[in-house]
């Protein structure tokens, strides 16, 4: 098991007003994803959760039955961050909803710099219907463009509200601005697995889990993504792991897990926490003891529906036995 000294992943949700950040936040808070999320929002008033799910509400923090909390940023992001980091038990992940006029890349500094945190990803939402007009707006055009450029992953929301032709041109246009995965989402159905970082349960390699879990809890039958857990038969050579992280298609939206990494100079393979979102990836030594029950560890991958070839991904990392 991973102990709580592991830095807590911080995910920044950016995007201009109306891009759908609040819808996503509401879904994350009430979702059945098994994670204890701490979501920091600018505007409590927008948070819309079934009162039956709320266990307490003290003005600054709303606590939910599923273990998630929602916290108002008010005027001090650092203070709110401290407040949720001090929760006992600590949250699995912190999600910061950046304000509509913030540069999410700047907010991200809290993720990679705040004591006890690590930056998971900057996810920027863009409204398929309005993003191109906003990018030309005399007051916010430059800002909206800069928000997209700061993303590790862009979700184009409300994609069901435009024609397929328009959607394609919007996606192309976003890709021309931000060289990161750009994914359309509909009806606010953003797959929670895309937003969620690796949780302790993902890392709990001792737990019995099916190799392929199928779609994740927030999605319906027409889900855009699917999730698989890759059980690695043996340690992975570092160079090979790094190559895979750099070269795997952006259809693989997220990668997270524990991998036993073998260094070029030999020696025992050591467990490492592996994370990848868009172009951002990291391989960090795991800081606590992990019972080795699979030979090489496990990686959870979230991929665009229909593109999963688990065997090929495993083959990129480890030679077939």
């Amino acid at each position, binding site marked *: 098991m991973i102990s709580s000294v592991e830095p807590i992943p911080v995910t920044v949700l950016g995007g201009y*007003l109306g891009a759908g950040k609040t819808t996503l936040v509401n879904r994350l808070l009430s979702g059945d994803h098994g994670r204890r999320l701490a979501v920091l929002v600018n505007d409590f008033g927008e948070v819309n959760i079934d009162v039956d799910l709320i266990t307490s509400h003290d003005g600054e923090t709303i606590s939910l039955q599923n273990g998630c909390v929602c916290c108002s940023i008010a005027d*001090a992001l*650092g203070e709110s961050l401290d407040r949720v980091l001090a929760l006992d038990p600590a949250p699995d992940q912190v999600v910061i909803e950046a304000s509509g*006029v913030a540069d999410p890349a700047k907010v991200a500094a809290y993720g990679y710099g705040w004591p*006890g945190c690590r930056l998971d990803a900057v996810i920027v939402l863009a409204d398929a219907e309005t993003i191109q007009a906003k990018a030309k707006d005399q*007051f916010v055009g430059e800002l909206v463009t800069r928000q997209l450029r700061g993303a590790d992953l862009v979700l184009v929301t409300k994609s069901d509200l435009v024609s397929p032709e328009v959607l394609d041109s919007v996606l192309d246009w976003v890709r021309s601005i931000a060289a990161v995965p750009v994914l359309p989402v509909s009806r606010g159905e953003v797959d929670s697995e895309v937003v969620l970082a690796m949780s302790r349960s993902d890392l709990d390699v001792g737990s019995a889990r099916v190799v392929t879990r199928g779609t994740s809890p927030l999605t319906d039958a027409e889900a855009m993504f699917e999730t698989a857990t890759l059980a690695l038969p043996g340690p992975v050579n570092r160079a090979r792991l790094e190559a895979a992280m750099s070269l795997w298609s952006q259809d693989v939206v997220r990668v997270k897990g524990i991998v036993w990494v073998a260094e070029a100079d030999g020696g025992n393979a050591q467990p490492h926490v592996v994370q990848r979102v868009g172009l951002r990836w990291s391989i960090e030594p795991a800081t606590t003891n992990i019972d080795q029950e699979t030979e090489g560890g496990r990686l959870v991958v979230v991929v665009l529906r229909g593109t999963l070839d688990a065997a090929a991904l495993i083959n990129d990392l480890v030679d077939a036995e």
Partner: protein
Amino acid sequence: MADITVFTARRVRTMEASMPTAEAVAVRDGRIVEVGTLENMAPWLDGYDHEIDDTFSDHVIMPGFIDPHLHPSMAAVLLPMEFTTVVEWDLPWSDIGAVGGRVELLDRLIELDAKLEPEAPLFAWGHHPIWHGEVDRETLNGISATRPVIVWHRGYHSMIVNDACYRWMDIDLEAARRHPQIDVDRGAFFETGLGVAYRHMNGFLLGTERFRAGLDRMRQVIHHGGQTTIGDAAMGMYGFEDEWEHLKAVMERPDTPFRIQLMPFDMGPLGDEESDEAMIERILAYPQRNTHRLRFSDHVKMFADGGFFAELLMLKSPGHLDGRHGEWMTPPERFERVARAFWNAGLRIHVHCTGDLGVEMVLSTLEKLQSERPRFNHRFTFEHFGISSAQQVARMAEVGALASVNAYYVYELSRAFADHTLGYERASQMSRLGSLERAGIRFAVHSDFTMAPAKPLNNAWVAANRLNESGEVMCANERASLDAAIKAITSNAAYVLGLEDEIGSLRWGKQADFTILEADPYDVGAEGLRDIPIWGTVFEGEKFPI
């Protein structure tokens, strides 16, 4: 005690066009009953018990000066600190010389270290790399190995500390090392890194005793500048009820010779979630708690783009010289929605607005509101007014806007911004006043203290001369006339605050608030404004010498 006190003077400068000068002011119960000559006042003086007070027989009585925009609470945090800026500060408790360069800064720090109690942290505010060069942890270790030394940026954008400060803060340096905006070796905290530093310092800086001592210094500063009314242009920045209690405790006293017009603000930029209706209801209820000196009215503050000193202004093409970006403090959509709610509720809106894109956003909103629901006498005021164009000024005149300008920007920033931020053309025309005057727009000048010294005569001097700290005249055509510069700290400042029937000029019925000068500014002329000695003030008929 007599019913009426008549203050006679070498001259009374009324700021009333009907009778610009007089010889005496008769006062009853803190209000003026008549301005004129002793001879013409005979009907009053024959009818009532009176005394003649000739304390000012060798002085000039002016309407009490008004600074419509400053921040007592921000000042309360800063005033207990040591000032080490590139410009001089004449504060009531000491004259602080300009700290012109790196050597001067270090000398000043050594001097301060020798002066302070052994354990006390040394907070020095005013460092700016453009003038002072880089300072780092080792430099400050050289100042003291035992005392926490903190050097704070003029625009609050960075903080440099020594090893003793790390120990005092009790900060986890290994964690800090991972922060991209903390440079542990240099001892530097920037942007979000500052949040980490404040976390370890706020208990000290915002402690009740220190905060109230800071507010008390602010009290002295206001009096020292000759002000009898000020506007707190964003009441509640550090928590509304806390600030209200501190203000009442420190300011609402018989020996406080000024009143404060308090302006609540749209909390949106701070992430408050209340509805527009609830916010308006709250704002409309504030006047019920007014005390004698602390007053709310129907004026409300909003924020457009970022700070001017912090270089976060939003600019139209060609943008910032170095390609950096400004910031919206309020998203334009929210701005329009909240401004409309305020406008339709009949509130008078003041907007913090620093760059020409900020002006554009605010102006186009005002134009929209005027066409939806025309209003007269709305007092919509552009605050700070850093960068603007002459064409925007013409549109402001069309829709009845006012301006409350930080003219002092020209003095401290015009050369540095010409070289580093904006280029010469725009920098030389910052805080344009000549255009406002030619367009017939009434304007005040303010200090936004501690952005500028809270010295109305000094701000009027910058407005009328546009001399900067390097001694250059920056855009002579944007100078205010002498008359407009004086009005900007008296009658037009009152108008901007909606208090023109109470203060800002001397005539029957107004508050007996005077600033007593050794010379008449109209005799001295624009060049000498800032050097006119101030005897003190009269607040509601009572004398308060400096």
